[in-house]
């Protein structure tokens, strides 16, 4: 059993890691050596690709744009949707069902249908080409996913604890901040990582909202690389690696604190 378990994990690990490894080493190949041996070890080993990328592109600016947009969006999203989820939890009955359905209905709307109307609305509001506009639009568009996840988990909270606390005189705010939030922390953390990834990697909405080159986020920038590097595969893959690095680092942080730590200690604590 143990051997089988290990084999399965090892195999799956290989399936995940092999493509990433190949992409990673391509970063250190010249175009010629890449085409001569796409899968081999980089020979000669060169740092030209990342150096060229950083020299020719304002990578730091793109990175900071992404950080700003992602953090502000996720924070606001979590704030609004935990409030909503808490209200859904407390209302109970028909109102809960209706509000929950209203939000989750948004899950099935393909962005192709509302993309032009959203654009023209935000243009009228003067939100286009501003990071705050992008943030507000993203928050609205992500509402269905985050309400769906967080409300789903909050429904599992024990009503007894809440009632006991409210008999002790705790008001709605306190119930929300002292009980609902900490008790559903693991699911909020899961939702947070989830949203974080979605916002960081989102392409369509930033593409719609942003114009100026100094405002672009990393995925948008990568789309430009795709045009600029055309058949230069190693450069393109370097772009892929470099745009993924901040998220990878962030994820290691999130993984450790959000998923593992919070999940393990929270419910028993």
């Amino acid at each position, binding site marked *: 059993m143990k051997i089988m378990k290990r084999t399965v994990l090892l195999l799956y690990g290989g399936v995940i890691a092999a493509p990433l490894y190949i992409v990673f080493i391509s970063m250190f190949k010249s175009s010629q050596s890449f085409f001569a041996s796409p899968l081999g070890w980089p020979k000669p080993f060169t740092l030209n690709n990342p150096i060229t990328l950083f020299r020719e592109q304002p990578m730091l600016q793109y990175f900071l744009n992404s*950080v700003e947009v992602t953090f502000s969006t996720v924070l606001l999203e979590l704030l609004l949707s935990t409030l909503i989820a808490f209200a859904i939890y407390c209302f109970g009955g028909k109102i809960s069902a209706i509000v929950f359905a209203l939000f989750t209905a948004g899950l099935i709307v393909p962005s192709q249908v509302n993309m032009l109307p959203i654009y023209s609305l935000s243009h009228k509001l003067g939100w286009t080409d501003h990071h705050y506009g992008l943030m507000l639009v993203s928050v609205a568009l992500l509402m269905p996913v985050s309400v769906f996840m967080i409300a789903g988990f909050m429904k599992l909270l024990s009503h007894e604890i809440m009632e006991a606390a409210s008999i002790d005189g705790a008001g709605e705010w306190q119930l929300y901040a002292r009980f609902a939030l900490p008790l559903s922390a693991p699911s909020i953390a899961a939702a947070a990582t989830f949203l974080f990834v979605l916002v960081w990697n989102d392409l369509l909405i930033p593409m*719609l909202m942003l114009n100026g080159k100094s405002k672009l986020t990393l995925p948008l920038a990568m789309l430009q690389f795709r045009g600029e590097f055309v*058949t230069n595969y190693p450069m393109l893959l370097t772009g892929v690696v470099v745009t993924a690095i901040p998220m990878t680092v962030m994820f290691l942080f999130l993984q450790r604190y959000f998923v593992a730590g919070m999940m393990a200690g929270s419910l028993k604590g």
Partner: protein
Amino acid sequence: MKQIKFRAALLILSVLIVSVLSACGSSNANKSNTASAGSDAGNKPSGDPVTISFIHWRGEDVEALNGIIQKFEAANPGINVEMQTMPSEQYQSTAQAKLADASVGDVFTSFPGAQFGALAKAGVFADLSGESFLSNYNPALIEAGKQDGKQLAVPYQLVYNDPIYNVKLFEKYGLTTPKDWDGFLALCEKLKSEGIIPIAFAGADIGPGQLMNSMVMNNEPSTDIFTKVEAGEAKLTDPFWVKTLSQFKELNDKGYLQKDALGTKDAAAGALFIQEKAAILASGSFQLAQNKKQNPNLEQQLLAPITVAADQAKYEGIHTTTFMLAVNSKSKHPKEAKKFIAFLSGKDIAGEYANATGQNVTVKDVQYTTPELQVATAWASKKTLFQPRFTITNADNQKAVTNSIQAVLSGKSPEDAAKEAQAIVDQHLTK
């Protein structure tokens, strides 16, 4: 419980700190950006500088155009040009919304055919008729930007959509460019027997849309055949298209295209040619410069397959004029926008653009310095046909046509593939 709260607080705090820091960081960065822009503006005369937006889909031309924009800004103090590019697929979606309300693209570019038609109908083009810079262009080559007698856009690039071949490989095996279909097949057979891939074909993306043009040019009964197909006066099941499809099938079945051609993308097909594993690359002159950059030893020429007997050949190849420069009709700075196009239209600047990007241009009397560009110049005197694919104005129909090529390459009979494509065209007829 306490521990959780502490952790949650720590987490939120750290998140806040990072986001505050990043906000500071980016505002600093913005400041430094405007500072450098300011110093540029320092040696300009007073008056508010006007910034015009220039959007297009040629990411690979950014470097060359940056240099040209610098020259333009130096020559026209008070006008800044902000350039933005998007890959061509995105260019058709988000760009159209932004163009329609003029939030970007005082100067923009358009594809000929379906996109040009739709943007023209929406009134996005400012009329350029009568502008003096038009006289810099070869009049025949800017026809594609005309509608109802008005010059709405100016095609800037001239492309020959004919396969590229490796001259040294041809010489090595004593091959010459064939004059008819049998000759073309014999050429492929010879290459194959020498262990060389005769034709590298990007079947997954651009291949069908490029090669179909030279394959159909001598098979079609008239140059407006696709217009007739779209009007219901001719059909894809007519001999001209079935024959073209069966010739595609013949190339594939005899192993003259590389293995798994339908899974091969543009870049990978290009790679086969660049590494000299393939002798012919079924794309167009727009790739000559890229190829040369990756393999400086390459010597390249163009070669269109002649699908009929030599005495029945009407055309020697295909040309397209594209990257059509235009001014947004809602632009707040039309004068400056036109000034920029006029600047691009100059013989010397067009030459600089052409030589730096490896693209031929529609501007007259341009001096080309690279052998790749001269390859294409030699084709100016040949009898070429405007790309038939772009005479299909409905994008669904265009796709049905190119997909029928993919269908025969995946094993369908030419008759069935043509029938399926015609069924899709028929659905658009009734509208």
